[in-house]
């Protein structure tokens, strides 16, 4: 099982986290076209390589984390607290 290096709790089993998904900006609801909005909702890059994601440490610090992970190797290049920017 892979370890995710939580900036608050240290390396923890991935099962302690909820995978939220690829991180991307929410379009302005006032001006977004259906095309833009559904791209935001459903279309993800899903690359084989580095990707920016959100994870939630539900069984730990209960913080949302901005994670940069290489999907080919599971190497986590960075993991920081989404709200405070705290990194390990």
């Amino acid at each position, binding site marked *: 099982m892979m370890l995710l290096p939580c900036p608050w709790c240290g390396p923890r089993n991935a099962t302690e986290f909820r995978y939220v998904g690829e991180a991307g900006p929410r379009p302005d609801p006032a001006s977004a076209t259906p095309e833009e909005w559904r791209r935001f909702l459903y279309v993800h890059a899903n690359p084989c390589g580095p990707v920016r994601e959100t994870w939630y440490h539900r069984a*730990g*610090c209960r913080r949302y984390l901005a994670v940069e992970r290489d999907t080919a190797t599971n190497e986590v290049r960075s993991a920081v607290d989404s709200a*405070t920017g705290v990194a390990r």
Partner: protein
Amino acid sequence: MSEAPISRSPVRPGTATVRDGWEVDARIAAGQLTLSDETPLAKVHVRAPFDRASRAALGVGFGRTARADLGTGEVLVIGSGPGEWLLLGAPGTAGALRAAVEQRLAGTGEFTTVLDLTHGRALVRLTGREAATVLAGVCAIDFSDAVTPDGTALRTSLAAVVTDIARDDRSGVPSYLLHVERSSGQYLADALLDAGRPSGLEVTALRGIA
């Protein structure tokens, strides 16, 4: 109402008696590896900025515990999360402890929230030289002294339930305070007793934090 209401723990006692208004287990274990229901302890929950004046006022940050006295008797301050603390005090002191914490934090000018969660958490204490062996059956955390020494606070998954763990040794003997949402209390106690059966884990009466 005629008589004072009795408060009950989610962990059903084997031999019930009433102490400080709580129904508690009266059993005293003979062995050295014990599980005690500490749910009656006062539990005051604090939310505040994780790294500023409130942290200094509470004396400890995320991941560690400290002892303090805010005028309500000895309390254990647990840095239970980033910007999150749980203070444990003697049964019946929750109201006073909450007021004391609010007063202490008021001076910081920070946005803080203080809640009495005495009834929101089930709290047990696992004590004994083999305590870490019991935990290794149900929890993926490394409980060696090097990684989780006395005074460590962490939250993790234990027997598939999110559990707060604070190591709080008693006279040099490893001891762990474990707390979960109140409704999972009986399950937590049962899971620990099951995992501890090969090591001879026994139930004993409330020990407190003093």
